[in-house]
């Protein structure tokens, strides 16, 4: 069996036939070529696959593509505007918020969701907001700095 889905991905309409078991992260990466959402742990813990679904941060390895029918999805590829980096992307660059970069797309989308809810979070609130995203090389200090940098520029 396949399911017809229609959704908006980074502002563009997408229509597809998917197997019910197709996970959203596989649909984005393999069918749409949007490889920004990374597959890390596959057990919903690491957050590398975090994207926005109707504005909410979601782990796309724990959602079926069929569940995203009708939704507006944003991946890291959809954040820059007219070739200009999003303040969060800029912040991760400026503050050295990444080394290997594997967790970065998920970190940025979780941070984006956090700043939507709370435009000027404290360090503690940033750490709490990014609890679902694990980094194994940079360490969280510079990631927190990167989010603060972005929060200042976005306010």
């Amino acid at each position, binding site marked *: *069996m396949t*399911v017809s889905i229609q959704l908006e991905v980074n502002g563009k309409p997408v229509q597809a036939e998917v*197997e*019910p*078991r*197709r*996970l959203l992260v*596989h649909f984005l990466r393999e069918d749409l070529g949007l490889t920004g959402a990374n597959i890390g742990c*596959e*057990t*919903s*813990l690491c*957050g590398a696959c*975090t994207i926005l679904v109707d504005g*909410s*941060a*979601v*782990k796309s390895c*724990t*959602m*079926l593509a*069929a*569940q995203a*029918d009708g939704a507006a999805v944003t991946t890291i590829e959809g954040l820059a505007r007219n070739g200009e980096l999003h303040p969060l992307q800029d912040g991760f660059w400026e503050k050295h918020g990444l080394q290997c970069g594997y967790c970065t797309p998920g970190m940025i989308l*979780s941070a984006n*969701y*956090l700043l939507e809810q709370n435009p000027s979070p404290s360090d503690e609130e940033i750490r709490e*907001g990014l*609890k*679902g*995203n694990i980094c194994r090389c940079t360490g969280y200090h510079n990631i927190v700095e990167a989010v603060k940098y972005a929060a200042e520029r976005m306010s």
Partner: protein
Amino acid sequence: MYPAQFDYRRAGSVDEALGLLQEHEDAKLMAGGHSLIPMMKLRLAQPPVVIDIGRLDELKGISEAGGGVRVGALTTHADIAASDILAASCPVLAEAAGHIGDAQVRNRGTIGGNIAHADPGSDLPPVLVLLGASVHLQSPSGARSVAAADFFQDLLMTDVGEDEILTHVDVPARNAGAGAAYLKFEHPASGYAVVGAAASVTVQHGRCTAAGLVVGGVGAVPTAVDVSSLIGADLSDDAIATAASGLDTEDPLGDIFASGDYRVHVGKVYGKRALAAARDRA
């Protein structure tokens, strides 16, 4: 890692979902999918048919009902944590929901899925038992309700029948002068509770008139502790510690992370702290 093949049906109403459940033997309902999809990826569950109830708006939302609060089965943890109604009339439920997993998990997971799945490390079951909540179920033959204390039957087993859908949870109005708290000792990787303690204390005219303590994570189902020794007592730290040390369960859960004895010990410590926090809020 991906699930075994299954057929997907999306229900447009509770009645349609009930019809689909009757039509397809061994079908599984899917709310947020945050317990079911991980189980399906690990092939611990291989339902032939998944019935997606995630869009049933009729089962979403938080409202005041009969002096208490009604929470629809499909209300997300994030919405419970952020609810003004709950902040005013039942803050301990919002507090517990706000401690579930992480922001992404709270955006998808629902109260109905959480209690229907009945993981012993879940945060909401002990709180709902503490509050004396009732769980409402609908089947083709009608609706019924069951007390939260009777709803949880065993590890991952509840009173939900094969032909039933959980529609909502009703939380009764709290006593005047009541304070409550939920404290969890969380697994550092998953965020689930190794042990979670939900406590309430009511103080009227300077006297403790009611107290409750329910601990999750030590037994297959939430474990109620008899803390009636606190009624009429001075609520000193010592009296609270003695009451919490009554936590007892015949066959405590144990795993590679925490043995049964350790869980009981942590349960007593967190029980004491939760009671003290409830007292300070009363």
